[in-house]
């Protein structure tokens, strides 16, 4: 028997008996999933930290760090802006702010969140298998990671707005609840796609391919008005209302209640499916990855 070292004593005082009675193995799958969520909330700091570490590691050793992302997206916006304003016969001054915002919202917002949600649990394979941590913690990690990348990229449309002396006004505040909705949807995507993609490895590329199609059929590089009278058909595309609730306020418009209504309804349905699937798959997930 050796005397416990001072550090372990301190540990003992600060983190006293955390889960005195672990009741995870008991209860229905839904109760266990709920316990998973409660544990995730308790450890949220760890989730945020893992998200930050992912970013830091991705850019370790590069002087500009995550600002590389900013530079690439600036280049992308500049080149596409010049080309497509020609193709669409539009003024660069009206087209470029729209394009820079849409493209950023899509590529580092919706698209990357969905794509990365697919590998949510697969990427954490080692940890899931050897450390007892709640699974939803990895969903927090993916959402945080994407939020950080988003914050680095949103600089590009902001710069374009400054160059063209545009100011969205007070309406822009409405983009904040919309972005929160995105974060919640992203969390749900991790629950749904994260577990599905762990079981069936071909879903990840399928999701990627579908996102590519969505990119072209959603008004991202083209404006909804260009459809003319058929623009109302856009509401059938679930990504349009989701994009619009963030984009419209930032461009200074108010999104219609209809658009918000559709976005909220879709999200609620999506959460319901995601939560159901997570409850069903959670206990098996560790065997799949």
């Amino acid at each position, binding site marked *: 028997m050796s005397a416990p070292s001072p550090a372990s004593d301190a*540990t003992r005082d600060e983190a006293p008996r955390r889960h005195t009675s672990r009741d995870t*193995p008991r209860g229905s799958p839904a109760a266990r999933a709920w316990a998973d969520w409660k544990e995730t909330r308790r450890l949220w700091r760890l989730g945020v930290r893992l998200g930050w*570490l992912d970013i830091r590691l991705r850019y370790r050793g590069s002087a500009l760090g995550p600002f590389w992302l900013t530079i690439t997206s600036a280049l992308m916006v500049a080149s596409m802006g010049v080309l497509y304003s020609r193709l669409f016969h539009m003024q660069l001054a009206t087209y470029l702010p729209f394009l820079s915002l849409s493209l950023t919202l899509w590529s580092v917002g919706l698209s990357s969140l969905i794509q990365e949600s697919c590998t949510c649990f697969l990427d954490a394979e080692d940890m899931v298998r050897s450390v007892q941590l709640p699974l939803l913690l990895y969903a927090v990690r993916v959402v945080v990671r994407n939020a950080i990348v988003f914050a680095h990229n949103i600089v590009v449309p902001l710069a374009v707005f400054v160059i063209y002396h545009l100011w969205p006004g007070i309406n822009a505040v409405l983009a904040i609840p919309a972005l929160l909705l995105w974060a919640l949807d992203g969390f749900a995507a991790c629950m749904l796609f994260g577990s599905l993609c762990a079981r069936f490895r071909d879903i990840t590329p399928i999701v990627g391919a579908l996102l590519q199609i969505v990119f072209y059929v959603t008004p991202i590089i083209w404006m909804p008005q260009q459809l003319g009278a058929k623009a109302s058909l856009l509401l059938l595309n679930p990504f349009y209302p989701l994009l619009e609730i963030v984009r419209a306020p930032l461009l200074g418009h108010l999104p219609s209640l209809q658009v918000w209504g559709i976005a909220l309804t879709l999200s609620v349905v999506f959460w319901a499916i995601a939560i159901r699937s997570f409850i069903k798959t959670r206990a098996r997930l560790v065997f799949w990855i």
Partner: protein
Amino acid sequence: MVHIHLDEISLSFPVLHGSSRSLKKTLLARAKSTVAARTGAVGGRMRISNDSSEVVEVQALSDVSFKISGGERVGLVGHNGAGKSTLLRLLAGIYETGEGVLDIVGDTHALIDPNAGMNGELTGRENIQLFACRMGMGRTATQELERDVEAFSDLGAFFDLPVRLYSSGMSVRLGFALATVPRPRILLMDEWFMAGDQKFQDKAKARLEGMVDAADILVVTSHALSILRQWCTRIIWMESGEVRMDGPADDVLDAYEAALAVIPV
């Protein structure tokens, strides 16, 4: 009261490989099998056979029941694939099963993998900070932990280099130093903790013994029977997912050794 109760616990898991990983192939196989079932069987359900996309289920544990109460030192023996590690992971809460009743009272800590939860790209120090965050430690506790682990693992300059550059012995040192920090009431330990680098071993032994002494319940798997004889009061002998024998350490180990002598493992 600290205890572990298992009542008729069974656990099976899927072995997914090749085309069972593919959604397309799984759907196709399912379609094929429903056609076959309609045409071939009357009433009974036919299983998909001779198809590579069939999911193979492995029965890792079947009807395992035992009770461990406070103060017991339990060793798990059995040859490879007998279900020892699965059982340990189940007790640690990493695996879950719907079959049977598992009742654990007391905080558990599992020493399953020396590099559990470590990120190879991070330095040793950063991994310690991550570990502290996982344990919910405050700032001062984290600093103390850092000093303690740095001194114990004795990695020198490597402490501030990414873990992926470590030799396997070095990463075991770091992993060991970290994993032995908590003082749980239920300690679950896989056999790698007994092994390790010769120079490191005396130091490691003292630290591990401190941890074991502080725990109310110890469950350990090992092939090193001498260590089990020394440490354990009770041995559970696992064979193909079932408890073959459960009793006082010396009795079970003698029977186990006798069995080993007959069938070489």
